[in-house]
């Protein structure tokens, strides 16, 4: 015990309350040094947050599998999407290996359809449709369409929505007023009406779907971008850039945009399920992808016609569509939480 501590104790408190032996030194033998923890990079932080979210990882894995199958599926099946084999009409699913276990064995309503059609050595994994086309090939071909639409939706979101929001928010005043009124009017027209009418004016198929997305698909994104710019445009670095004589568009796209780009990309992931749904909806009503080309929506529409007789025809495309939308939702949720942990985790 050192002298000073006793003196202090005496000086400040009554003599009996504390004894010197009441105290003991800690860290006496430790070298007091700053501990260096391993630095976590931003990317690693994001990775940790993302992988902790089970749903997001599952969603990501399913997306990767579906993309993979969409690429190689039509190649490995040995059929093309429009190849019609009339003698193999309406065959239920039959998968080698699993047929021994009593599932996917080509039986329908208690009868072996394959044997009845003299095709005991043929395997159609997802079955065939009423025209004798291989559903496995058609489902993955249709998935390609949905994935292309998804990609286009993201591009439209970013190119049109983001630029529109950035410009509207940055300039403010009259420009903002007019641009926002336009958005309000566009937003007032139900997508449904635009899409159905466009399907008639334009050639039906991809073009009309993409055009419909271009008219209404980007409005949500433009609102977010505008709100972000309103926050950022008063900041000091923008002022500094202005003082140095930067042009307006240089400030918008070189200074402000990189700061919000990541966030907006993540938000654009949320428009993917919506776009996929729009395509499936249009094709289901008969205004989207036209036969013999397949899309998930048109496959569901075809399968619906024989739903009560051959329910398997619709199931494969329904499952892929539901999985695709589900996993994109989960993935986008996970990404948002990982990149922005401050946001409310719902």
């Amino acid at each position, binding site marked *: 015990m050192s002298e000073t501590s006793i003196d202090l104790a005496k000086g400040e408190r009554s003599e009996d309350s504390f004894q010197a032996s009441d105290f003991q030194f800690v860290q006496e033998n430790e070298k007091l040094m700053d501990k260096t923890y391993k630095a976590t990079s931003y990317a690693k932080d994001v990775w940790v947050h993302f992988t902790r979210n089970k*749903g997001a990882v599952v969603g990501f894995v399913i997306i990767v599998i579906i993309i993979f199958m969409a690429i190689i599926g039509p190649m490995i099946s040995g059929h093309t999407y429009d190849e019609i084999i009339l003698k193999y009409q309406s065959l239920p699913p039959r998968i080698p290996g699993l047929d021994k276990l009593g599932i996917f064995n080509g039986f329908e309503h208690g009868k072996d359809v394959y044997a009845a059609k003299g095709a005991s050595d043929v395997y159609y994994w997802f079955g065939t449709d009423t025209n004798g086309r291989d559903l496995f090939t058609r489902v993955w071909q249709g998935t390609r369409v949905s994935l292309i639409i998804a990609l286009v939706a993201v591009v439209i979101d970013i190119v049109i929505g983001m630029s529109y929001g950035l410009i509207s928010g940055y300039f403010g005043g009259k420009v903002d007023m007019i641009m926002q*009124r336009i958005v*309000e*009017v566009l937003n*007032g*027209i*139900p*997508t*449904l*009406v635009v899409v*159905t*009418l*466009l399907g*008639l*004016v334009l050639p039906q198929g991809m073009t009309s779907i993409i055009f419909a997305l271009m008219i209404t698909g980007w409005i949500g994104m433009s609102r977010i971008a505008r709100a972000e710019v309103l926050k950022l445009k008063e900041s000091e670095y923008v002022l500094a850039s202005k003082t140095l004589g930067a042009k307006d568009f240089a400030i918008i796209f070189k200074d402000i945009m990189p700061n919000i780009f990541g966030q907006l990309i993540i938000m654009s992931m949320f428009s993917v*399920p919506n776009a996929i*749904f729009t395509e*499936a*909806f249009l094709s*289901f*009503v*008969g205004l989207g992808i036209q036969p013999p080309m397949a899309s998930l929506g048109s496959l*569901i529409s075809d399968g*619906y016609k024989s*739903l*009560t007789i051959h*329910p398997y025809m*619709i199931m494969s495309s*329904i499952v892929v*569509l*539901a999985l695709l*939308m*589900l996993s*994109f*939702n*989960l993935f986008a949720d996970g990404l948002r939480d990982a990149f922005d942990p401050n946001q*409310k985790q*719902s």
Partner: protein
Amino acid sequence: MSKYVLKRLLISIATLLVILFVLFLMEDMMPGSPFNDEKLNAAQKAVLYAKYGLDQPFMIRFMKYLGAMLKGDLGVSYVINKNKAVSEMIMNPLWVSIRVGAQAMLVGSVLGLLLGIAAALNHNSWVDSLCSIISIIGVSVPSYVFALLLAYFIGFKLGWAPILYNAKSVASSLTLPTIALAMFPIANISRFTRSEMIDVLGSDYILLVQAKGVRENDLIFHHALRNTLIPIVTVMGPLLVNLLTGSMVVEKVFAIPGIGMLMVQAIQNNDYNVVIACAFVYSAMYILMMLIVDILYGVIDPRIRVAKGAD
């Protein structure tokens, strides 16, 4: 407040006018004519065009239509129901569609709210997990997929409800469509209710209410729910719109003679006036819903009312 409502009303009317104009323009660009499949020569077609005033310039037709519309006259059908007034034609389908939509919204919001509250009160329990699973599935799976699954399993396999619409037993034939359409609102509303409720229950004023010894039911339904409702009202607008889109396909699945079916039929037949009327009704309903939601927002939350009133 009244100034704000007035401003919103003006914007809505302007939007409707623009929509009508765009619809007219699109109709004009549509390939084909209403008198396509009749065996008519050019001279006879010209007579028909003159009879219905289709030979006049675009702007004159538009202004005439607008003038007639203000008197409640939506023109006559050219193809589907020859020469019948469109305003009569769309009445019945409109009511069927509104009925399905309203039922779905009612079921969806009540169940969604209850599910969300249950999940928030039993945070991190099995109720909570169930709520998350339902909401994720409900948000991700399109309503017509639900409709098809319901039609197959409940309608066809179990035979509990009719698959196809029957005008004699409207209530029972609208059961499955209502459930199919309600899935999305249930999922969305329960998700929002849950996260908002958890937030509100953790706030100071709830602690105070608890300290005052208010009964639990009162606490949840009187004090907590009101604040929870504010953000939920904002999602109601988009939800209703989604319902409109969904209902069009669900109508096709269950063969309900609703406005969506009529519109598709009219588009396929180039029945100009019917297409315009259906699309316009859709837009008008949509804009009306947005308006109601906006005003409702101010009614529920006095803070917004004040802020907007000063605007």
